[in-house]
């Protein structure tokens, strides 16, 4: 096997699990709350900066910073829900309001990051350092960790939604809000739970990816666009779809990058998604309006 090929596969699987991790939170919120959370990228850097702060200012190891970043991002997302999402739930202008509000939040977060830290790239240490060489390609242990974590989280979220009381309630709310409330499921709190979980997932992605992507106030934007693409490619609200689409797009992008050059990667992905939307407007796992989680 050629080095190039191995490089492309490794990069693709790594990208794929990264995109999947970001998309998982996005698709979860869309599926349950019908909220297109354009602040998802902002929550991503909230988690990463929180972890950076623990490492750089408290001088604590990354293994403590990681859970801190995750919890902080989850709490941030929940606070966003309380202040900006909850007041408009069930109101006629929900789409407009949340669209603008989440854009506003992501601007404010970038600006706050710029003020608190500075525009320079921050280094967050990897959880696992070191690497090994396979067929001439450097395989980092952190990369392996990202892949394993991503797959594990997909499994975990899937199991949570399928087998637990809260998970089933989330699916119930997403399918029939009124009936859910008649079954004594608190709808708005359930929304808050989903948004917090999604935020924690974004935060985890942020902490794990910061060593690879570098961290500055703008670094949330690209991962979010990628997550949006993956979410739509896989079919909005579909968790299985997000997983598969993450890998398909990751590997596609990686191959384009290795064989045609890095400047073609993003345009290539955009063209792929436009073609896909023409052929299958509902995404790979084309599910209609009702079935979402």
């Amino acid at each position, binding site marked *: 096997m050629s080095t190039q090929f191995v490089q492309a596969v490794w990069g693709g699987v790594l990208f794929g699990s990264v995109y999947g991790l970001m998309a998982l939170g996005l698709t979860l919120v869309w599926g349950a709350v019908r909220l297109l959370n354009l602040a998802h990228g902002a929550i991503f850097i909230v988690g990463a900066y929180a972890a950076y702060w623990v490492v750089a200012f408290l001088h604590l190891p990354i293994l403590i910073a990681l859970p801190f970043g995750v919890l902080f991002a989850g709490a941030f997302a929940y606070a966003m829900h309380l202040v900006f999402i909850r007041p408009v739930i069930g109101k006629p202008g929900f789409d407009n309001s949340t669209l603008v509000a989440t854009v506003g939040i992501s601007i404010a977060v970038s600006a706050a990051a710029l003020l608190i830290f500075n525009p320079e790239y921050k280094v967050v240490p990897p959880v696992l350092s070191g690497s090994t060489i396979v067929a001439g390609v450097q395989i980092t242990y952190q990369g392996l960790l990202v892949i394993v974590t991503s797959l594990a989280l997909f499994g975990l979220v899937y199991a949570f939604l399928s087998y637990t*009381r809260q998970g*089933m*309630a989330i*699916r*119930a709310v997403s*399918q*029939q809000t*009124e*009936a*859910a*409330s*008649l*079954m*004594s*499921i*608190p*709808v708005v709190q359930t929304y808050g739970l989903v948004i917090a979980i999604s935020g924690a997932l974004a935060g985890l992605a942020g902490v794990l990816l910061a060593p690879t992507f570098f961290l500055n106030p703008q670094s949330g934007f690209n991962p979010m666009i990628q997550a949006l693409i993956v979410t739509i490619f896989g079919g909005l609200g579909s968790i299985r779809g997000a997983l598969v689409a993450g890998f398909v797009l990751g590997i596609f992008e990686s191959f384009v990058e290795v064989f045609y050059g890095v400047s073609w990667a993003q345009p290539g992905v955009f063209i792929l998604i436009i073609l896909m939307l023409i052929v299958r407007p509902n995404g790979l796992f084309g599910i209609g309006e*009702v*079935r*979402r989680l």
Partner: protein
Amino acid sequence: MLEVKGLVAGYAGSEVLHGIDLVVNEGEGVIVLGPNGHGKTTLLRAITGLLPPRAGQVLFNGTDITRWRPDLIAAAGVVHIPQGDLLFPEVTVLENLLMGAYHGPTWAARNVRLGRVYELFPWLKERGGQLARTLSGGERRMLALGRGLMSKAQILLIDEPSLGLAPLTTQQIYASIQTVKESGMSLLLADENANHVAGLADRVYLLETGSLVREGLAQEMLRDKALLESYLG
């Protein structure tokens, strides 16, 4: 146990219910009879908080539950089986049933409750893995009923159990409601057909254009064909 006083409710711009007074006692089967479009569904929705009432009071075991959130009213034990069943379409029959037992204290006893629901509707057990949206109309109604029974309901509010069903299925549904009632459950049923509810009813209210116009013991009222015909047509 359930007491409604001067309840006024409606939708934007139009008042549907103009001051309803109604009582359901422990273990009693109370029927609200009235033609379509006279406010039966609105009444049940106003009681269980889906449509916050404009005025009046709803008391449950002496507690004022007016304008509580629907999920808290359900948790208190007032369980509404809505018109159109409102099943969770893309999850299985079993998961639909389990959601009926969502409320914390009930969840622990969900298997016992499942057993009881299976006794009433044995087919639910065999087809637990089927998606709810693939069921037939009668099956959906039974599942909705079963889902309601999974909760720790003290009173069931059932909205037109026969709506859209074939005669044979209708009989089956009312027979199961009868069984439920005999187990001691209080019932508030909204219906438009006096013949269906004869066995269930202890007392009857007649609802016309948003007001209760008659109240009486079922034995007397349901026998009075002339009266019923003049109201229900």
